[in-house]
C-alpha cells in the first residue's frame, strides 16, 4: 500500500469566499485528506442556453474513509464523480473550483497526466458493469493489459497477479473467470471484475457510481461487503454514489446529501440518521419505505426542480414545509452544526 502524501493547499486559502471559509474549521487543513473539492462548478452549454448543474460543491475524503453521496436523479452526483476523474464530456464544462488530490489540482493537470492519475491512483466503477467492459475481450486479456500498463507485469507474472486480484474480489474460480467474456458474466460477477480492474493499479481512491443499483439484493450485499473489506484491508478511500439510504447506512462513514447541484447537508453517517438538520434530509429519511414500517409514508410534495429554471434562494424552498421569505430569495451558506456536521439551511437553528 502506497503512503498517502498529505495534500498541500497552503496558498489558495486566503482568497476563498466566505461561505467556504467555514470549511477551514474542520477538518483541519492539511490533515489526511486524500481528496478535497472546493467550490466545484459545472455548466452544460447548449446553443441557446446553459445550465449550471453543480453550483459550488465542497467535499473531502479522508484516507480509508467511505463518503456517500446521496441525492435524487439529476442532482449532480455523477457529474461530480466524472469531474474528479476528468471524464466530464462536452457540452459539460468545469467553470470553477479546485480538486486537490495528493497535492495537485486535478482541474489544472493536462490530459496525459490526468489519464495517468485516473488509471493509477484514482479508479472508478459504474452502475452497469457489463456495459463498461469491452465485449470482444476476455476478462484475462483486459486484466493482463491493465497490469502491463500499470505495473509492467507480463506473461506468467501478469496471469498470477490477475488470478490473485480476481480471488481477492471474491470470485470463486479465478482461472475460469479469466477465460470468460463479458456476456458470460452475471451482473454480480461483472461488478467484481470491474472492482478487480479498478484495484489492479492499487489506487488510493475509488469512485463508485451506483455500484449496486443494477444488482439483486443478495448480490448487492456481497458487493457492499467487498467494498467494506477494501476499506478495512487496503485503507482504500472511496466515494460511493447512491440514491439508496440503506446502502449508505450499511457502508458509509460520512454522507453528503445533494440536491439540485448543491450539497445541502454533510455529516457522519450516524448523525445524518439520528439528527438530520436539513428539511430535505429529514424528508428523505421519512419518505423511504422501511421494513419495520406499515401505513402511509411521509412523502415530500412536489418534484425535483428543473435545472434550467433553478428557483432563486434555497433550491429546496419550493418543496420545503418550513420555507420562509428569506429561503426564497437568498442562497443559504454552509454552516457548522457541530465540528463534522454542516448544513445549508437558513432556518436550521430555529427548527432544531
Amino acid at each position, binding site marked *: 500500500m502506497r503512503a498517502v502524501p498529505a495534500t498541500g493547499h497552503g496558498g489558495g486559502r486566503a482568497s476563498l469566499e466566505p461561505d467556504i471559509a467555514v470549511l477551514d474549521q474542520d477538518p483541519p487543513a492539511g490533515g489526511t485528506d486524500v481528496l478535497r473539492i472546493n467550490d466545484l462548478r459545472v455548466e452544460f452549454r447548449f446553443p441557446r442556453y446553459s445550465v449550471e448543474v453543480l453550483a459550488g460543491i465542497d467535499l473531502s475524503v479522508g484516507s480509508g474513509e467511505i463518503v456517500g453521496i446521496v441525492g435524487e436523479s439529476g442532482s449532480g452526483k455523477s457529474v461530480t464523480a466524472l469531474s474528479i476523474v476528468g471524464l466530464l464530456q462536452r457540452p459539460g464544462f468545469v467553470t470553477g473550483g479546485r480538486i486537490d488530490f495528493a497535492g495537485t489540482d486535478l482541474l489544472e493537470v493536462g490530459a496525459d497526466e490526468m489519464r495517468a492519475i485516473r488509471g493509477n491512483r484514482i479508479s472508478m466503477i459504474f452502475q452497469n458493469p457489463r456495459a463498461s467492459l469491452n465485449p470482444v475481450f476476455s476478462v484475462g486479456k483486459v486484466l493482463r493489459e491493465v497490469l502491463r500498463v500499470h505495473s509492467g507485469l507480463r506473461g506468467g507474472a501478469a496471469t498470477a497477479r490477475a488470478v490473485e486480484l480476481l480471488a481477492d474480489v471474491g470470485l470463486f474460480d479465478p482461472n475460469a473467470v479469466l477465460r470468460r467474456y463479458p456476456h458470460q458474466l452475471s451482473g454480480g460477477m461483472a461488478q467484481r471484475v470491474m472492482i478487480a480492474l479498478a484495484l489492479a493499479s492499487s489506487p488510493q481512491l475509488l469512485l463508485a457510481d451506483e455500484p449496486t443499483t443494477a444488482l439483486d439484493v443478495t448480490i448487492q450485499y456481497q458487493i457492499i461487503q467487498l467494498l467494506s473489506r477494501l476499506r478495512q484491508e487496503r485503507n482504500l478511500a472511496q466515494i460511493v454514489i447512491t440514491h439508496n439510504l440503506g446502502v449508505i*447506512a450499511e457502508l458509509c462513514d460520512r454522507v453528503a446529501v445533494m440536491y439540485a447541484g448543491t450539497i445541502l447537508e454533510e455529516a457522519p453517517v450516524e448523525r445524518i440518521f439520528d439528527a438530520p438538520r436539513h428539511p430535505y434530509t429529514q424528508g428523505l429519511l421519512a*419518505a423511504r419505505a422501511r421494513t*419495520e414500517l406499515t401505513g*402511509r409514508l411521509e412523502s415530500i410534495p412536489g418534484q425535483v426542480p428543473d435545472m434550467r429554471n433553478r428557483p432563486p434562494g434555497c433550491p429546496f424552498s419550493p418543496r420545503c414545509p418550513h420555507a420562509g421569505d428569506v429561503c426564497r430569495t437568498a442562497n443559504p451558506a454552509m454552516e457548522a452544526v457541530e465540528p463534522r456536521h454542516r448544513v445549508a439551511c437558513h432556518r436550521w437553528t430555529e427548527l432544531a
Partner: protein
Amino acid sequence: MSEPLLDVIGLEKRYAVRSGVFRHRDLVAADDVSLTLSAGETLALVGESGSGKSTVGRCILRLEAPSGGCVRLDGTDITELEESDVRRLRPEMQMVYQEPLESLNPRHRVGKLVAEPLVLHGIVGKTEVRNRVVELFQLVGLGEEHVDRYAHALSGGQQQRVGIARALATNPKLLILDEPTSALDVSVEAQILNLLRDLQRRLRLAYLFISHDLAVVSMLADRVAVMYLGQIVETGPTRDVLSNSFHPYTRALVSATPVDHPRQKKLRIALTGEPASPIDPPAHCRLVPRCPYAEPVCSAVAAELLPIDSCRSTRCVRFQQEHCDGIWDPGGDVPIQDTVIRSTESEVNELKLND
C-alpha cells in the same frame, strides 16, 4: 371466506431452448405456482431477477400462454378461453409497468393514451371521453393541465401516475404492478406508494405486487409469496414471513436487505454464489447448492410447497421435517456472515440465530 377474485393453480411456463444440434431442453420460468388473491387485498410476489415473477404476471394476464396449470378470474378458467374471449376479460385485469416512460407512447399526448382503453373497450360514450380522462387524472393526483402534455415533458413520478390512470381506465378489479416504483426517486416513490394505498381503499382493487424490495413490500402487501428459480418457496402474511421466515432463501433475502439505520444489528446469512441455471432444474430443492442449511436429505427428496399452518406454507424440506410449533432451529455450524465493519468504530456485532 368468499371465493377469491384470482385463483392460480399449478401454473407452469416452459420455454424450449436449444443446446447443441439435436438436444432441446426446457427453461422452466415458472413451475407449480399457486396463489389466490381477493378483492381489496395485496399479494406481493417477491424474488430476484430471473426468479419468474414477471412471467407469472404475464401468464395471469394471458399476455403469454401458460404451459400448464390454470388461472381463474372470478371463477372463470381463463386458460381455457379463446383469444377473443380473453380480450373481453382484459378490462378486468391491468398491468402497471416498471419503466413509465417506456410504456407510454411518446408520439401521443398522455390524455390520449388514457383515452385509448376507454374507447377500445367502449367504457364511455364518445362525448364523455374527455371528462372521464380528466376524472382519471384527478384520481391519480394530476391536474387537468397535464392532459395535453407529452410523456417526456412529465417527471418520472407524473409518468407513473399516467400509467396508473391508464390502467384504471377500464375499471379493473385486479392490477398487476410490476416493480412500479423501482425506477423512481425515494421522495417520489413514497408519493406513488401512498397513491396506490389510497386507490386500493377507494376502489377495492386487488393488487398483485411484483417487487424485489422487501421494504416496499412490507409497506404495501398483506401477504407475500417468495419466489426462487421459478417456484414459490414460501407464502404467508407479510409480517410473519419477514420476521420469522420458514425458508432459508427468505431468510437470506431478509438478511441481505440493507439496514434502516447504521446502528441496526442484523442477522446475516451467507448465501454463497449465484442462482443455478433454470434449465432442466432438479426435482429437489433448487437452493441446495447455495444453502447454508442444506443436508443430504435436501437433495434426496422432492421439494413441495406444503402448508405449515392455516396461513403459511414453505417448500423447505428440513423445515417441514424438523419444525415444531412453527419454530425451526436448524442448529449446527451455519456460516453467518460478519456484518460490515466500519473504519470509525470497528464493532463486531453479536449475532444469534433465532433472535
